[in-house]
């Protein structure tokens, strides 16, 4: 299958999946924006007002970390069980499994773009940032998207073999939320614990995005982008290896 055919099939499946979901309830689309908005509102209240985290443009800082975090975690949690929920389809026809997974990740990405435009962009403009910096966003989003896709690939294959992967992933995310500098800046981590952030792959995907949105520092952006791309390549290789190793047993276990 050519890349173009793969892309067309992924698009078709994404549109059909959204059509199917919103035919059931239009409130679903409101939820897509309401969910991050509520999370942002509650966290802004707790961390800014109750815990009094003090830093310039905190609300923009928080949104710049929270939106990619929500995209990363919800896409992985929605994508991990996708082969098991679509097992009958995969067993029934010669359908490229990656089209199904690609459509799921695309769905999550569209939600991310919607919440970016409807929530983050107004804040960004309110804080009087240069719209020119936004031109760097596609660069910052590429490793985030590829990294999320690769990790979802690995976990969705493993979920076919161990059906509780998604529960474990959810638990790990709830721990990582506190260990990832999303609602606090990285500088808050004492030097002795710097390794906690260095070992956290999600941080590498979030940082270029946040540098564009909040810091606006071009000197920091390029090294962060390179690191982010490097981590995305490692996870892509991992996803590829896991698929090669498990391909045969995949259909047996579905």
């Amino acid at each position, binding site marked *: *299958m050519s890349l173009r055919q793969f892309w067309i099939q992924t698009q*078709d499946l994404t549109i*059909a999946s959204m*059509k199917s979901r919103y035919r059931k309830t239009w409130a679903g689309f409101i939820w897509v924006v309401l969910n991050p908005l509520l999370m942002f509102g509650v966290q802004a209240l707790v961390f800014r007002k109750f815990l009094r985290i003090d830093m310039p443009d905190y609300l923009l800082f928080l949104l710049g970390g929270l939106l990619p975090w929500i995209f990363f975690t919800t896409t992985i949690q929605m994508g991990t069980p996708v082969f098991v929920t679509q097992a009958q389809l995969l067993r*029934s*026809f*010669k359908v490229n499994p990656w089209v199904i997974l690609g459509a799921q990740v695309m769905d999550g990405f569209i939600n991310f773009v919607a919440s970016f435009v409807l929530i983050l962009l107004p804040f960004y403009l309110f804080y009087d940032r240069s719209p020119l910096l936004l031109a760097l966003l596609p660069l910052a989003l590429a490793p985030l998207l590829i990294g999320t896709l690769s990790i979802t690939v690995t976990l969705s294959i493993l979920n076919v073999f*161990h059906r*509780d992967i998604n529960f474990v992933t959810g638990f790990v995310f709830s721990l990582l939320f506190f260990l990832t500098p999303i609602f606090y800046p990285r500088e808050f981590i004492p030097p002795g614990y710097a390794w906690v952030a260095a070992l956290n792959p999600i941080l590498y995907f979030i940082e270029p995005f946040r540098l564009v949105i909040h810091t606006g520092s071009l000197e920091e952006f390029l090294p962060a982008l390179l690191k982010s791309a490097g981590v995305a390549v490692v996870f892509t290789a991992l996803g590829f290896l896991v698929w090669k190793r498990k391909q045969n*047993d995949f259909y047996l276990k579905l």
Partner: protein
Amino acid sequence: MTSTSSSEVLLRVNDLRVYFELDHYHQRDLRDVFVSAVTKPLSFFFQREELYFVLRGVSFSVERGMRIGVLGVNGSGKTTLCRCIAGMMIPQHGTIESSAEVRAIFDTGTGIMPELTGRENALLLARLFFPTIRDVRPIVEEAAEFSELGHFIDVPFKKYSKGMQSRLLLSLISAVPTDILILDEVLDGADVFFQKKLAQRMRSFIERAGATIFVSHSPEQIRQVCNKVMVLNQGKITYFGDVEPGIAAYLSLKAPAHAGP
């Protein structure tokens, strides 16, 4: 691929062997893996898994115009063989030589989006089945007409009976000629009249091009559709040839299991 006017070989399977680790037949949660790693660390890390061979050296060729009926008791390797030919599984040993386009269907009781109508599901499936065709709508319209579903084509797929699902999917997959069409025990959901209609359609498009690999437990269906029979037993081909002797070979396989004391 060799090509002659009378017997063009579409597919050549050489010494195919597929095996699985026996452990893989058991579903294990991560929690179970953790428990066995802690309670039995030695056997967990050092015990080699037993291998179960599903295919043990299968070789044959498919020529244009062949309608091969594959017979065999459950677990004889029929579906695994079809999945290897369809490119869904990679054999650990042996080769499959082919440049033919293969289309395969293993179950007819499934749509992609149950909430969407039969027509919308068919459009989506047509995109997946026929990626090289730009406009699939005429194919879907033809398949909808052939399936005789009438106004049910615009009813949500989840409301379909098993027979209706089967009609739509079989009409769709057989709507465009392909080099090799694989049907794995998929006629059982359709009624006897539709089975006959579909068998006729398959014969007509096999005459135009291609070959069919047809898996079934029903000798009657095999007689209707096929002009060759392959009998698989315990992962090996025990017969490959004409239909009636093939059916007899299959029934003789089954005989001991049915013989009571």
